[in-house]
């Protein structure tokens, strides 16, 4: 039995450090590995051409475009709803049972498995509302999935605006909504932007919710309307790594690299925006 408390502390801290290394080192390895293996596949042709010969040749252009459309559609639905919902919670909601339920509902929405969102989207948008498997159905499904992210980040941003700003505005006779619009929202904008970017990166990377609501297995053309099916990068990666035999490894790693680059660069932008405005903040 080791009695010396300082020696024990050394042992404990070393173990803690090893645990942290076990979490963080594989992340670096994974990034390095994908970049190393996927680097050769990336070319202008790979990014800008239609897939050919059952996806074994050609590029991933329709998958990239499909993902961009999906992300844009998701924002169109989720952003207004999420921001208004956060305004409600932060500015209007009283501390009562209803508010408690709203908060619980948001926590639950964040915890619902992504494949259950897929089932829900299939049930309500594809079948019940008869949108069919389409960009519209996929975007709305993803929008409900990212809603908790937008609400939580926006709410934090609104809550961080000092109460005195509002009081000054009220004391000048400005109404509640005008105060929110002209005083609170401008100061909360960076936080809202961060939430938006994180939502985009989540929507771009998810596969399970789009499996039955929008994703096309192989569709070498671009979607023409919001009622069209579309290819999407994460689903494409799933398909070419499990469903289609004899694909060059390079193509798989290349697709993984493109998806990873899109998602990580979005996250990086979010981090930079956050850091930049934290520094500039004067209160």
């Amino acid at each position: 039995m080791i009695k010396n408390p300082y020696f024990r502390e050394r042992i404990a801290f070393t173990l803690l450090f090893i645990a942290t290394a076990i979490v963080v080192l594989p992340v670096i390895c994974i990034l390095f590995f994908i970049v190393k293996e996927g680097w050769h596949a990336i070319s202008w042709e790979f990014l800008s051409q239609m897939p050919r010969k059952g996806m074994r040749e050609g590029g991933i252009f329709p998958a990239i475009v499909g993902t961009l459309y999906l992300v844009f559609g998701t924002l169109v639905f989720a952003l207004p709803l999420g921001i208004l919902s956060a305004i409600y919670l932060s500015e209007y909601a009283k501390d009562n049972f209803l508010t408690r339920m709203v908060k619980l509902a948001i926590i639950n929405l964040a915890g619902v498995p992504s494949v259950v969102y897929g089932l829900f989207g299939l049930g309500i948008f594809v079948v019940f509302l008869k949108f069919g498997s389409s960009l519209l159905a996929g975007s709305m499904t993803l929008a409900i999935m990212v809603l908790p992210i937008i609400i939580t980040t926006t709410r934090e941003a609104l809550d961080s605006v000092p109460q005195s700003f509002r009081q000054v505005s009220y004391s000048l006779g400005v109404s509640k909504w005008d105060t929110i619009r002209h005083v609170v929202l401008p100061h909360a904008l960076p936080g809202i932007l961060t939430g938006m970017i994180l939502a985009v990166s989540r929507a771009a990377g998810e596969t399970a919710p789009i499996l039955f609501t929008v994703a096309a297995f192989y569709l070498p053309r671009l979607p023409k309307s919001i009622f069209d099916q579309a290819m999407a990068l994460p689903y494409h990666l799933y398909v070419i790594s499990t469903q289609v035999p004899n694909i060059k490894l390079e193509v798989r790693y290349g697709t993984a690299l493109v998806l990873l680059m899109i998602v990580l660069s979005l996250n990086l932008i979010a981090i930079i925006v956050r850091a930049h405005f934290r520094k500039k903040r004067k209160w």
Partner: protein
Amino acid sequence: MQKSFSQKRLQEWIIERCIYMSGIASIIFVCLIFLFLAKEGFSLFKNISIFDFLLGQKWYPISTPPFFGILSLIVGSLYVTLGATVIAVPIGIASAVYISEVAPPRVREILKSGIEVLAAIPSVVLGFIGMMTLVPWVKNTFHLSTGLTAFSGALMLGFMAMPTIVSIAEDALNAVPKRYKEAALALGATRWQSIWRVILPAASSGIVAAVMLGIGRVIGETMAVMMITGNAARIPDNIFQPVRTLTATVAAEMGETVRGSDHYYSLFAIGIVLFIITFCINLIADFAVHRKAK
């Protein structure tokens, strides 16, 4: 031209109605999700009893006669989840303690961004990497006929649950008032003693929430698990055999079902099971957090 006062009042009234509506939208969505899962899922129980569904061991949805017993899938999910929890909880909490209490500020920022990157990697990419690296490694190390096992899934999911556990546990540790630690140090405790005896107990309910949400993440994970656990729908003898989870079953089979068939309804019924499980987990986590608030 200046808008008249009443016009402005009307505009403001409309906007505020919109805000109230959006505010309760989350509740509506949760209800809608349950409603639509139930609408399709409960159709199954016209033909099959709920006990046969939950406790039946055979999952042969397209044979004649079909069997819709999800016990093997529940056990599959349980194996993977337990394995992942055993791996992720101690390591995750230890990293959270290191990041929030031990690491110097600069190192802390680097480690935190490492964890944020991990949280951002899409699960399909992690599944793909798992297929390429982890699966062959498991196969060779343990001399198995296939590396697509519950063990590989548990390793990968344990890894994927880290960001959730670490970030929430870290928040809980940071929320412990500084004076607790200072009091312990002033009494002559070492830093480790103050962490072990004072800070960890004080943050315990937040850490429980972190663990619960991590488990919720693992149960709900779909793509990575489908790609690396082998998807064999039978009850495994040990953790080194292929299993199939609830989530992977839904994702893999929905594309091949006929709308309105029992198979189609049964996948929605699995959705209900998943929804109820994650709902309970989130409730427990929420209670843990609110106990701390008092």
